[in-house]
């Protein structure tokens, strides 16, 4: 029996769905016991949410003031200490996990496997490289702790309906004071989260301006969809960075993805390869996005979006 420690991601009040997706990945390794580690401050509710996830055997709670904000420099020494008793340490490949897990791996003096998309054996994992244009089988030697991040778009969240045992855990690790959290600047999150939305409407450079994005939002709101964007649209200042979909932005897997005025650079396509159905609307019939779209429509998005909105 191997033991897997899964690092929970949360925002202080709510467990992030990336955690349940990471658990799904870990559950693909044979003969393991899954434990979730929640690091936070006053985080009983989050521990409770973690305990409800199917397949979790135990939830460990490291509750202390310093854990109120997610600073890798503060969390990593605690995780590394607790991880000593585990064979696997998994975190989500979100910005939280990407920031944190390599620090944990370095403290444990082991290499990290980034972005697991498939478990092919107890010590072998598929992961995308070159912006998803090649898939590599990474193999971890026997006797080495496996520290990894999980590409959450490759996994569905496991359902709830469990009530795992919750246990407080404390760490004696010395915590640094050289890193201080100042603030999070976040756009009001009135629309569904990109990484969990079933429908995502995205705009690219073709939308043309920040003001023009309003028609994208209107259509999204009518459909209850999340809103994404290409790097070009973010760079041009039409929308904020947290909406970027692609190799260096968010990797998403909605049931339906509709791309308006997005040319389809490979870096963007990397972020949407796992979508159920991809719809592309672009006035350039040669746009690369049509190569991977399930349904393509050549035309002017400023005519098509209002018509769609009206007919839906």
């Amino acid at each position, binding site marked *: 029996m191997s033991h897997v420690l899964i690092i929970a991601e949360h925002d202080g009040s709510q467990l992030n769905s990336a955690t349940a997706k990471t658990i799904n990945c870990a559950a693909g390794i044979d003969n393991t016991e899954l434990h979730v580690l929640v690091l936070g401050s006053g985080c009983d509710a989050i521990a409770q949410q973690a305990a409800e996830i199917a397949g979790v055997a135990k939830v460990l709670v490291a509750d202390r003031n310093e854990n109120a904000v997610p600073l890798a420099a503060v969390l990593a020494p605690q995780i590394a200490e607790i991880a000593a008793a585990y064979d696997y340490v998994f975190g989500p490949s979100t910005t939280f996990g990407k920031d944190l897990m390599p*620090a944990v791996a370095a403290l444990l003096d082991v290499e990290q496997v980034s972005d697991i998309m498939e478990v092919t054996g107890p010590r072998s994992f598929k992961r995308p490289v070159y912006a998803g244009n090649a898939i590599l089988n990474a193999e971890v030697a026997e006797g080495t702790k496996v520290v990894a991040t999980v590409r959450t778009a490759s996994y569905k969240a496991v359902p709830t309906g469990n009530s795992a045992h919750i246990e407080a855990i404390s760490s004696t690790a010395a915590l640094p004071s050289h890193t201080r959290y100042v603030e999070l600047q*976040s756009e009001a999150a009135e629309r569904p989260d990109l990484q969990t939305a079933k429908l995502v409407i995205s705009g690219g450079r073709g939308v043309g301006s920040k003001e023009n994005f309003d028609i994208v939002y209107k259509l999204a709101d009518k459909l209850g969809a999340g809103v994404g964007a290409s790097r070009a649209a973010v760079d041009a200042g039409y929308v904020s960075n947290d909406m970027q979909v692609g190799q260096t932005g968010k990797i998403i897997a909605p049931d339906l993805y509709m791309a308006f005025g997005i040319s389809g650079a490979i*870096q963007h396509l990397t972020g949407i390869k796992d979508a159920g159905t991809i719809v592309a609307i672009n006035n350039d019939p040669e746009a690369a996005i049509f190569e991977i779209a399930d349904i393509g429509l050549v035309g002017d998005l400023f005519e*098509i979006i209002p018509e*769609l909105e009206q007919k839906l």
Partner: protein
Amino acid sequence: MKTIMVCLKRVVDYNVRIRVKPDGSGVVTDGVKMSINPFDEIALEEALRIKERGEAEDVVVVSIGPADIQQQLRTGLAMGADRAVLIECNEDISSLTAAKVLLKCAEKEAPDLIVLGKQAIDDDCNQTGQMLATLWGRPQATFASKLELSGNVAKVTREVDAGLEVIEVDLPAVITTDLRLNEPRYVKLPDIMKAKKKQLESVAIADFGVELSSKVTAGNWETPASRAKGIMVNDVDALLSVLKEKDLV
């Protein structure tokens, strides 16, 4: 501050369409254009801007790889770096090993700031900066889209999933760069000539005494499954009828 150390990785140029070798042993790199990892180029640009504002004296670029990486280091010097260190290594090394070697380099250079890309666009690992900071026992500020220095403290705006997170770190620190931190300059011909006279020091990786073998090895490489060929529709009505058929709207 005195020195900024910038780590550059040589990668297959981002415009190259990657092909997996038929025998699954890797990707085709023979005769393929190589460049500085774009994120590392942003890192160097940021270091140069700090120096040009008079807030640093010396920018050193460091790279690990075969002797050919001299080209990328020369490009870095032409962009404006003061000197370069080429750590010659003819095998693939992991991010952890790279971090250990860069740590030795940092111990020698004693930089106030180490700047590097958040990830390399070949292995997409996103690990080296974090590992280097951790091994060095210094702060990390990853995915930076804004960097403000004031005395011994750097205020860094980070691109995170929820928006923009601001943190403060004491120097020395490791910063990893995101795309929107800056737009790197183009290299001008006279600068390329000037760069030839700048100092480029070569060191064998063996001199650092770091174990190079890896516990995580690359097995078979595959081409990703491609999506089935799609259809084109002529108007919104046709689009909606397909979406309704699939029960998507």
